[in-house]
């Protein structure tokens, strides 16, 4: 268990930081937002990530993986969180790629090189209600004749409006609440009976509501084993929760550093406001919280790399603690910036909004607190 990045991982982090400063600063997000960009991300930037082989970082070496591991990928996510960069990396690689890799089998695993080459994007359609509750999945998958029929509605499908293919969690057996009976299917977004409604979220990223109206699929659409999708899904959720926590950590660090810079400079009553103890103590508390979150994220990433059996516990800790941290720090950032914190001109509000959206991705704080308690047996 190590929580210190090695030299290669540090170099990767610095390189990505340089790329983001140059090609994907916060103004890029503003441009996408203000133009209501149809794709929701800058394909040129995605190509740059592909050119740097970022998508294959966590793929098994036989698929061109680089061996930086999740600690390396987490470092990339953290840097992207700093500039609020938008890309298919999370949905396509961390969620979709993981599921295909874990499911194995030729038709799907063969797609990994296409992902690595930037030729294929994916979206995971998992949530159905107002909150993340994967066991409650009610969308049905029925085996009929030689094929499958998919029927139901999905919400908050990240990148669902633009991804080439959708990876859908559906129930083929059992009842909502059961782990058994969940299955995964992969289908092109543009399949007959699939209705995609883009939803533009307040953080400038895009998601979609996707409706499947008795969509007919061939048997090859099935990813993994029928009824046994949970074992894959669980790992996908853990990886996703940890990586999104890494991104959120980056955002928290950035908005905190910007706030510290501001209170060191802003003067009222003839002094710099950062000299007030009321602000100093709150700032110091935030620093304590951030360092603990950094620890937990580094630890969770290294657990993924080491295949630790407590991954789910670590994932829930990371997501729950970082959720609370980002919420708190983005609130304090607005407050400490005073009136300026309320303006759209300053970037602070963008972090505030990103925090809220990210907090809902793959489980809010209560979800992960409850999951942790269940895993701990109380």
């Amino acid at each position, binding site marked *: *268990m*190590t*929580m*210190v*990045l090695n030299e290669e991982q*540090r170099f990767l982090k610095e390189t990505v930081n340089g790329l983001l400063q140059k090609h994907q600063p916060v103004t890029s997000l503003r441009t996408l937002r203000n133009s209501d960009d149809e794709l929701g991300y800058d394909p040129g930037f995605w190509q740059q990530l592909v050119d740097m082989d970022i998508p294959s970082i966590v793929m098994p070496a036989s698929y061109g993986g680089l061996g930086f591991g999740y600690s390396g990928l987490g470092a990339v996510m953290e840097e992207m969180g700093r500039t609020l960069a938008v890309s298919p990396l999370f949905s396509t690689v961390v969620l979709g790629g993981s599921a295909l890799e874990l499911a194995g089998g030729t038709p799907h695993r063969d797609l990994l090189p296409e992902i690595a080459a930037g030729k294929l994007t994916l979206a995971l359609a998992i949530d159905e209600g107002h909150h993340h509750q994967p066991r409650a999945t009610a969308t049905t998958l029925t085996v009929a004749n030689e094929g499958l029929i998919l029927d139901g509605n999905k919400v908050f499908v990240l990148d669902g409006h633009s991804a080439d293919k959708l990876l859908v969690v559906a129930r083929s057996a059992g009842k909502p609440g059961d782990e058994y009976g969940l299955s995964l299917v992969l289908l092109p977004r543009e399949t007959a009976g699939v209705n995609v409604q883009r939803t533009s979220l307040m953080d400038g990223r895009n998601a979609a509501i996707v409706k499947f109206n008795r969509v007919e699929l061939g048997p090859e659409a099935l990813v993994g084993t029928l009824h046994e999708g949970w074992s894959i899904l669980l790992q996908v959720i853990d990886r996703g929760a940890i990586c999104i926590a890494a991104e959120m950590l980056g955002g928290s660090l950035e908005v905190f550093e910007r706030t*510290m810079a501001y*209170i*060191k400079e802003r003067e009222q009553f003839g*002094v*710099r406001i*950062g*000299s007030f*103890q009321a*602000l*100093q*103590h709150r*700032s*110091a*508390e935030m*620093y*304590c919280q951030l*360092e*603990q*979150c950094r*620890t*937990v994220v*580094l*630890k969770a990433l290294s657990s993924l790399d080491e295949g630790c059996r407590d991954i789910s516990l670590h994932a829930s*800790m990371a997501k*729950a*603690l970082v959720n609370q941290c980002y919420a708190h720090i983005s609130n304090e950032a607005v407050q400490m910036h005073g009136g300026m914190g309320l303006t759209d001109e300053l970037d602070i509000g963008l972090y505030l909004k990103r925090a809220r959206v990210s907090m809902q991705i793959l489980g809010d704080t*209560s979800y992960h*607190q*409850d999951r*942790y*308690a*269940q895993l*701990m*047996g*109380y």
Partner: protein
Amino acid sequence: MTSLDNFRLEVRQWLETNCPESQRQPIIKEEQIWGGRRRIFPSPDARLWFERMRDKGWTAPDWPTEYGGGGLSAAEAKVLEQEMQALGCRPPLYEIGLWMFGPALLEYGSEQQKLEHIPKIVRGEIRWSQGYSEPSAGSDLASLITRAEDMGDHFLVNGSKMWTTQADKADWIFCLVRTDPKVPKQEGISFLLIDMASEGVSTAPIELISGESEFCQTFFEDVRVPKENLVGELNAGWSIAKRLLKHERKLMSIMEMMVEKEDETVVELAKRYVGVDGTGQLRDNALRTQLTRHLMNSQAIEWTSYRLFEQHGQVIKDAGLPLIMKHISTTELQRKDELILAIMGNRGLSLKDAEYSHKEQRLVKNWAYNKAQTIAGGTSEIQLNIIAKRALDLPGH
């Protein structure tokens, strides 16, 4: 296999052979081994364990051998600590001289002072107390007024010190004293060692809210102290004091690890007092969430202290990281105590009634006692000031 792995194996074998079974049980306060001229061993096993560790110098594993220490490297000392933890070995000696005074004397003391005092600490022969705070000097320690007048061949000390740890049982006390009242307050303080047996020294225990009285007020009335008991230069005591406070903060986290290991986890305690439903879930949902928050936080703190350790000797360091440990660990410890009280409900309200079990009373006592954690060794507010200044570089007033 690296030499450190070899060392680990040796240590493990040695501990297994030499640590008596009874000394591998969770420590309780009454069985702690304290040093000093008037030391009493709680049991023959405790004495054996202490003497074996003492003879290897492992009461102070990483101190130099020329002063009686174990001479281990930092990495080896960590291995020893880990192996002791793995086997559940009790600390062989509880001593302020080990945790705070010794490290500072090794750094600032004269050769003669080190030879005189350090081996006696390692061997548990002398028990030390600390004389820092005063009735009118708490967080603003530098405003202390206990004075030591230069009388030519000796100092004459007058004043009183608060929160002198177990001074009624200590043999010696290290004190901060005012040696120059005319200069700015930090520049007129010296670091002086005083034999508690000197004429004019007296102590009065301070009873605490926990019902214990581990601390004393210590009075000095025309106490003659030999000149050679001055550590460092005259009027240069403040820098030693600051260094020592750092050790004290470290001590606070050591102390936290050394609190009596409970036979039940908080989770088990909660299940017993609050009850569970048919699915094994705690009956009180709000308490369940509070418990989760505590477990996550304390795990995060434990990992953070490991992360800090991992950074020893690394190029990349988070310079601010060591500054947060005292604050975050003591704050969480208090949250844990509050949680335990909430879990016990009306069973967690008595410090002495025989209706309540020894354990229930002990948990209440811990709750009250641990209120000191965020005050002693630099209050949380002072810690936050330090973080703001040194880690965040926020402007002064």
